[in-house]
């Protein structure tokens, strides 16, 4: 089995430009094309070494796909390959306005749990979160294309925060639907 060039970055692997706004369809097609040639099912009758290699290569392809598909992970990866310093998750933001927004959103999510129209409220928060995610993505693109790496890092962190609230909301919706 011929291994792909493992020194490529994820964007190069899928034949994409290293930008935030990638075409999800192109990503998906490139992913399936790569899987079609490297997946272990295509190398069942080969040597142990090649079968092992196929598992490792497809694991790497899956990891790359997983990273680029998700906007938060994609933004972090872009920063990583651009040489930006990424603080770990424990660092807190000094942005008071954003802090207040965080607290307010969390409270809104908690309020849905007890509310009679909890699911409706969830849907409202959901569209608000979607809008915020979209705005932050634009701000990230603006900072990143202007070469403002520290500013991009902050936007990426904010996107991550909104995504976490979305996950909490998902979990709550699942709970409420079951009632």
């Amino acid at each position, binding site marked *: 089995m011929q291994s792909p060039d493992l020194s490529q970055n994820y964007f190069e692997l899928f034949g994409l430009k290293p930008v935030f706004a990638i075409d999800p369809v192109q990503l998906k097609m490139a992913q*399936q094309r790569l*899987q*079609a040639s490297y*997946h*272990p*099912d*295509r190398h*069942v*009758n080969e040597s142990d070494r090649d079968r092992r290699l196929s*598992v*490792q290569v*497809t*694991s*790497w392809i*899956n*990891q790359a*796909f*997983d990273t680029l598909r998700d906007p938060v992970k994609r933004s972090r990866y872009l920063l990583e390959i651009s040489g930006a310093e990424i603080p770990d998750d424990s660092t807190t933001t000094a942005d008071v306005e954003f802090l207040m927004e965080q607290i307010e959103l969390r409270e809104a999510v908690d309020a849905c749990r007890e509310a009679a129209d909890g699911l409706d409220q969830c849907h409202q928060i959901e569209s608000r979160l979607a809008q915020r995610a979209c705005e932050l993505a634009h701000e990230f693109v603006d900072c990143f294309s202007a070469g403002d790496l520290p500013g991009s890092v902050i936007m990426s962190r904010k996107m991550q925060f909104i995504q976490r609230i979305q996950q909490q909301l*998902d979990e709550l*919706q*699942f709970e409420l*639907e*079951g009632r």
Partner: protein
Amino acid sequence: MALLQISEPGESSAPHQHKLAVGIDLGTTNSLVATLRSGEAVCLPDEQGRKLLPSVVHFGDDARLVGSEALALQAEDPLNTVASIKRLMGRASEDLTRLGNVLPYDIVTPQDSNVPRIRTRSGDFSAVEISAEILKVLARRASLSLGGQLDGVVITVPAYFDDAQRQATRDAATLAGLNLFRLLNEPTAAAVAYGLDQNNDGTVAVYDLGGGTFDISILHLNQGVFEVLATGGDSSLGGDDMDHAIGEWIIATAGFVDVDAGLARRILISARQAKEALTLAESVDLLVEDEQHKWAGTISREIFDELIKDLVSQTLTACRRALRDAGIKTAEIDEVIMVGGSTRVPLVQSMVGELFARTPMCDLDPDQVVALGAAIQADVLAGNKPDSDMLLLDVLPLSLGIETMGGLSEKIISRNTAIPVARAQEFTTFKDGQTAMSIHVVQGEREVVSDCRSLARFELRGFPPMTAGAARIRVTYQVDADGLMSVTAEETTSGVTAEIVVKPSYGLTDGEIEAMLRASMEHAREDIELRMLKEQQVEASRVIEAIDAALAADGAALLSAEEQARIAKHRDALAIASESTSVDELKRLIRAVEDASEFYVARRMNHSVRQALTGKQIDEVDV
């Protein structure tokens, strides 16, 4: 073999040879084997034309029975008749379902192993060994039908099977002497069986309720690529639980006390028959009896629905969870496919139909569809279809984590991640000169380790001693295309690879599997010896009969008293030894009788020739 291989019309004879590949559905209740015949997947029947092989093994005094013959013995000999063994694969005995607080078998767990064994009259057997017996019967059926040794098999497993259950299934294949191409998830197999000829793109939900397991998979189909978006389920929920619900109802309604294993089996058999009949009938009469107990009653569809309502609701919760994980709304599902015998239950069909707001598809026989899909993939993996675009992309059903301080699980790879997948983690040492460490890997979604399923403890040894905190130990968790996990570790500053000792929590160690392989080969040898012994015993009685008949006919006429006595002496020695268990001894005595009576046989021949010539003219005889 190769010289006898005939290429099919339209197929180029060179360079590749058609490989014999089959798909096996190793089910809780029934198992099947299927293959591709002239491009079409078909289930292979046994000599009596039966496709379904009941997954039941009976351990008799000198033979093992698998299938219907074993099933027929279950009420009469419950402790030696093992059914639903799939529920014990990769599990501890606490996971077995009890009825009226009786375990179905005598379970023993050896001191030096974590794997429970079922005690039968011919010994103690693990779930892996019992499953291997079922696999062997199916493989033999396929070999006979296809006319040769199998090149490889695909065995299906519930999508929700955890690592230990998958390992156990792979071990069973090893023990049965099969070349396992792939463990394929059952719902994915069903989607393949449905999807290939239709070649339509879209999103499908596969609802698979079998005898002992429940799976839901959400798949995206596009140009021969079957991509699993999310999967969910319960690996110990199925038709068996419906039987148990009816069984408990019978015990309560009849007021039975002291239910023993035999009665429990009888109750379950009646319960299962009632469940099946209630698919069409509105009510069913029941009769349960043994020496001490007797009860007759009626169960209605309404009561049955009430008994299983919670169970079906549980499956719907799993469906909603999988939809959410896939990021798919019910309205976006183009098709709902029903798989598994238990989807014949009317309440299941109506509740699933209601959740997805569409009539579920059951065009293909829900019992066969998984095996058919497995056969299609086996054919592709064998290389018989080099131009096939088919590609199955599956996911990890349950998150993998490691135990951290305070007994919490830290997730390493989350559920529904596409496989194969690898993740690496870096550790350091906390003591000077530390050369070993241990990692406890668990699987499940819960925060606390004790609520997850323990998979294995990995002992990493042999890193170079360094000062505390200086070592960088990179541990890589790899999940392959079968959904099986392995762990490798390396100290990165020195490049030394750690030696890893795996202690599976519920699985067999490599040593145990080796011992079982050896035992099964010895068993096969014993089988051959037993057959040879039987043959010699038959031969011995044939020889004795022939001698007796000859002596009675003309012994006195052709032999002196002394000659008669000499032959009789050898004949008697053989008769006494004919119950002997030694093949060699029997062979020697048979030869002795033959040698001793050789002259007699010659004399009889001459005599009969003379008799034939008597009264004839010389010219009438051809010389």
